């Protein structure tokens, strides 16, 4: 591993204004380029992986394995006419895609991507600097606040289009995002409590224990699950893609958008996916911590990136598996399931921390084991019960899902989830005429 030699001078970057300026400008540029490239290849990943789940091929003609597909898409979109509807509110219509994109881009400003490293500079000295833009001491609040600003892009797009579908999409998504933001915030309280700090860097460092056992997901699996679901809802991904439910609202809030403005919504969605995966990985999956990262700090971003990609794959897998939730169930789930359980998760961690302090010793470990036991038991009970209760309707439903979902073997647990999500009575589905669905014999 390369590093500063015995004789070389290592200077702490934080104290030097020139160094901090150069560092932050370079980090901004690197972060933006990584996010743009990440966006491009997340679209390819999504299309290829969805195609795999649906037993299709996916885009594979543009370049090797379809790797040049995003370039082709971008070039195509930039030469497409950008239609502004006559009755739209011009300025807000223009601003909405920008307002949707900016929060997704800047939310990662407070996340460090690796331990501090020493870097040689042209003046022959070494500088010790963090692998991230800036680690402010209210990082978690920053994440929460910037996510809540993200609602505006959707609301503005829906309002300015002067279109009924867009309007409904905007309204729906604002109500949905505020509902799930609450659970997200509560799930973020747990890492703050466990780490005793609101800086994302401190939260990540508090999870540095053994290879992976320090991760907060092992101390409070329920909070981690709530966080994952809430983040999924926050970026309006399936099965929470209510605002743009194409079967009911054509394209929801971006019905009227075309050309480059539409591309910006697309960009915002995928960068938002990357951003929330990063936040999730930082909060509950140890951030950049894994075996050997402490010895080789440059591995930090790689490890972090791999975790983010893993979470992205899970998000796409969920999209390929689960049907969309009906809107009333979505709101009921957010308020009557997520919120109470999030409160319980916070209370659990509070009790665990107090026990750890008052009793000490193995209290923490015991609480973690009990938490996992309860979590797994509860989850399997819920999924099993939901599956049994609605056998006829949901069996047909699952059949439809797996017809489009390709190999049934891959869909083991998620199809139970699909049954759970599609509802106990299956009333939404049973009311609609199902021509394609075959009932299993």
């Amino acid at each position, binding site marked *: 591993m390369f590093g500063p030699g015995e004789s070389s001078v290592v200077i702490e970057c934080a104290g030097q204004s020139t160094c901090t300026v150069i560092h*932050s400008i370079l980090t*901004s540029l690197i972060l*933006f380029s990584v996010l743009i490239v990440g966006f491009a290849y997340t679209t390819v990943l999504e299309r290829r992986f969805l195609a795999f789940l649906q037993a299709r091929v996916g885009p594979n003609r543009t370049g090797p394995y379809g790797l040049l597909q995003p370039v082709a898409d971008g070039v195509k979109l*930039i*030469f*497409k*006419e*950008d*239609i*502004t*509807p*006559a*009755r739209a509110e011009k300025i807000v219509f*223009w601003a909405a895609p*920008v307002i949707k*994109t*900016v929060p997704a881009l*800047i939310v990662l*400003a407070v996340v460090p991507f690796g331990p501090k490293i020493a870097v040689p500079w042209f003046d022959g000295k070494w500088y010790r600097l963090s692998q991230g*833009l*800036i680690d402010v001491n209210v990082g978690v*609040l920053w994440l929460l606040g910037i996510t809540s600003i993200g609602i505006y892009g959707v609301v503005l797009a829906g309002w300015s289009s002067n*279109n*009924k*579908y*867009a*309007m409904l999409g905007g*309204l729906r998504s*604002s*109500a949905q995002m*505020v*509902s799930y933001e*609450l659970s997200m*915030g*509560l799930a973020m*309280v747990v890492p*703050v*409590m466990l780490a*005793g700090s609101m800086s994302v860097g401190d939260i990540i460092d508090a999870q540095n224990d053994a290879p992976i056992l320090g991760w907060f997901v092992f101390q409070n699996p329920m909070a981690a699950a709530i966080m994952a679901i809430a983040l999924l809802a926050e970026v309006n991904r399936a099965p929470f893609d209510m605002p743009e439910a194409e079967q009911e609202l*054509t394209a929801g809030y971006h*019905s009227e958008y075309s*050309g*480059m*403005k539409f*591309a*910006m919504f697309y960009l915002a969605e995928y960068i938002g996916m990357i951003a929330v995966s990063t936040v999730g990985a930082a909060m509950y999956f140890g951030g950049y911590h894994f075996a050997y990262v402490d010895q080789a700090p440059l591995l930090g971003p790689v490890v972090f990136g791999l975790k983010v990609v893993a979470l992205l794959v899970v998000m796409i897998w969920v999209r390929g598996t689960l049907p969309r939730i009906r809107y*009333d169930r979505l709101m*009921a789930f957010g*308020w*009557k399931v997520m*919120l*109470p359980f999030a*409160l319980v998760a916070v*209370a659990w961690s*509070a*009790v665990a*921390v*107090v026990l750890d*302090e*008052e009793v000490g010793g193995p209290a923490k470990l015991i609480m973690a084991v009990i938490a996992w036991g309860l979590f797994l038991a509860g989850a399997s009970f819920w999924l099993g019960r939901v599956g049994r209760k609605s056998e006829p309707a949901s069996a047909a439903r699952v059949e439809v899902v797996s017809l489009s979902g390709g190999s049934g073997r891959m869909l083991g647990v998620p199809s139970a989830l699909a049954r759970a999500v599609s509802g106990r009575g299956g009333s939404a589905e049973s009311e609609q005429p199902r021509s394609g669905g075959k009932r299993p014999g």
Partner: protein
Amino acid sequence: MNLNEWIFIGLFFALGWALPATPIVLGKILAPKRPNQVKQQTYECGVEMVGSPWTQFRAQYYIFALVFLVFDVELVFLFPWALAYNQLGLFALFEMTVFIFLLVVALVYTWRKGALRWS
């Protein structure tokens, strides 16, 4: 020093604006522009729009936002408490339990009243 880091976040914010704005402006220059009346109509799956998009929406959206506001304030109180929690001990847990219990009572009331039901 403390301010410095926020200035960089501000710069990052400013750069973040340029990033989505540039392609849109670029698209404006490069893309063809041939508007006509039919093209600029409000999209409604091929039929002409009847009335204005400002139809009556259900007030339920507003109720959810209202309940959210109350719990958002609670959330904000939770953060400093959680931050100092490992230095506080049992009494703080008790106090926060009381605090949250009162709000849970309110939530249960809202629930029982049917305000959380989307029907």
